[in-house]
């Protein structure tokens, strides 16, 4: 059984159908990429999986490890192992990076019936992981994402992922706003998290990211449906021809 199993997923935003029947299954340990033109519904899919309000599922099912994801609240999904690295990470004035991470970890521990994490040990662990991602101590002390550059925000998302060790990671346009050096750092961070028990859904508009994070499977999403599925060669094909082939489907 796949780790994530999406069947015939339909979703609307403001009553407007955006996802129109998505079937997708991701095995444990696999990395799948979703590519597609702007407005094709990539972020919508990520929000539907994370359980954001206002994204209404009208048909279909999503299972994580066999559990019905759509029945769960946003926080329950996160505790169950879903992680969404957002396209536009949100600023949290007054909430420091450390507090944010500690609260997130303690929420998981609470759900598992464990005590709160030891503050000193946690600080050390976070600092070590932050260092490999180029997240400075100063960034951890400051309010989450406030005054961060685009690249800093994305690195901060990956740091959260590294600390929370989710089962299923969704990376929504993690490459947007990154220069080539930052892209390398972030990709290495993501690659370091690849493991047999963890799956990833890497959403991107461009082929560029996929030469750093090599996916097992690539899907093309257009007009709210997966139009094509293939291997790495699909990314190169898209790089050459763009999404024109799918324009008709998207129109």
């Amino acid at each position, binding site marked *: 059984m796949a780790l994530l199993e999406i069947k015939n997923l339909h979703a609307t935003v403001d009553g407007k159908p955006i996802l129109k029947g998505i079937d997708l299954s991701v095995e444990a340990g696999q990395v799948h990429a979703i590519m597609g033109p702007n407005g094709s519904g990539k972020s919508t899919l990520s929000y539907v999986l994370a359980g*954001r309000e206002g994204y209404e599922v009208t048909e279909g099912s999503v299972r994580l490890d066999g559990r019905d994801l759509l029945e769960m609240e946003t*926080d329950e*999904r*996160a505790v169950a192992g879903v992680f969404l690295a957002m396209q536009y*990470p*949100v600023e949290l004035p*007054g909430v420091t990076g450390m507090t944010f991470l500690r*609260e997130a970890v303690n929420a998981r521990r609470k759900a598992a019936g464990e005590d709160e994490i030891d503050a000193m040990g946690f600080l050390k662990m976070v600092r070590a992981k932050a260092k490999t991602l180029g997240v400075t101590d100063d960034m951890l002390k400051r*309010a989450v994402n406030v005054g961060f550059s685009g690249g800093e925000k994305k690195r901060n998302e990956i740091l959260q992922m590294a600390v929370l060790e989710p089962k299923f990671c969704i990376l929504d346009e993690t490459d947007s706003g990154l220069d080539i050096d930052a892209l390398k750092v972030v990709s290495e961070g993501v690659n370091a998290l690849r493991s047999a028990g963890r799956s990833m859904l890497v959403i991107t508009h461009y082929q560029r990211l996929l030469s750093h994070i090599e996916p097992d499977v690539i899907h093309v999403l257009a007009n709210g449906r997966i139009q094509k599925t293939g291997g790495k060669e699909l990314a190169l094909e898209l790089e050459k021809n763009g999404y024109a082939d799918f324009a008709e489907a998207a129109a």
Partner: protein
Amino acid sequence: MAENSSLALLTAVPAPTGGADWLSKLRRTAVANAERTGLPGVRTEAWKFTNLNALKALEPVAATGTAEIARPAAFADLEAVELHLSNGMLSHTGDLPDGVELVDLADPTAAPDWVSKTLGTIAETGPHPFTAINTGSFTGGVALRIKRGTMVETPILLMVDTRGQDAGGEQTVAAHPRVLVVVEDGASADLVELHTGAGAYVNNAVAEIVIGKDARLGHYKHQSESDAAFHIAMTAVRCADSSTYDAFALLTGARLSRNEVRATLAGRHIEYRINGGYLACGDQHVDTSTFIDHAEPDCASHELYKGVLADRAHGVFQGKILVRPHAQKTDGYQMNRALLLSREAEINSKPELEIYADDVKCSHGATVGELEDDQLFYLMARGISRERARAMLVAAYVDEAIDQIQREPVREAFRTAAADWMQKHIAGAPASEGV
């Protein structure tokens, strides 16, 4: 004009008789003023957002007797010298540091000049009926003098508590605690003022603050009166050249509260800071009214209030800044921000600038907001429950104001007090923030 000539609040306390001439005179004028104006009505401009009908309907009796006063949990660990005002009377005096003089206002007959020449000169009774009632009726209180050049390291913790002492504690009581603080030239101190109580009562408090040249006072107030209480407070401040007043008010208690702070900046290069947070839920009404009189050039005033209003709570913020013609180079900042957690919560903001000098930098503003959906989603997408996420965001919101408290251990105590409120009323707020 007088809507309630009987002035139950005034008659609750038998008019103090005898005493020194200066005091008798002060009281006579105050009582005459109170009787002339009566209690404010909704047509009184300064009170137009705060309806006093519930208070006027009361027939309180004088709060008598004193009780032990316990520290609120958030202040348990604060190293401080305690002074207790129970039902308006000084009931406990800790070991005061050298250079600090105390006079019990229950019997100021033989009061030294620094009391007799100052008391009643800072807080005016003419335009302020509650101040007039306090002045006419106070049966006790405390006057503190920080002598010239004295640096008081340990904060002075003034614990003001009101509660009925009769068997049932059923009757509404009224107390009129009076405070005078004189910080002489070059002296420095921190005063933490806590207001607590039990049952139904009216706490009509007046504090007069005089800050000398090059002197500094940190004045931090936490109002956490009982749910059934009325808290009416006037703090009147007068600052001299190059002095600093750093004040903060955390208002969480009482059924209805009015915290009024009026200041005259009567010298140059004064740094005047009054910041605060008001947190209310249920049917609470919380009114903050401030007035800053920039009478001299080169002074800076900073005022940031952050409010959180849940359920049907009603907040009021009236802030007036007057810059007199002579007060060039005034730097005034005033901001009131309120976060409404429910559709039925309400805020009235009335910032007012009256500027007669031409070379000044003054800004003011007011904002009203709600918790941001995308912030809630972000926290929840990391596994944090909705209640906890709300509490974190609200705490973070109020923190911006609490951060203004200059004195470190006091700041942490206030942060904890705010967090305790979140814990109780928003659920699950972190007890402390930061790395």
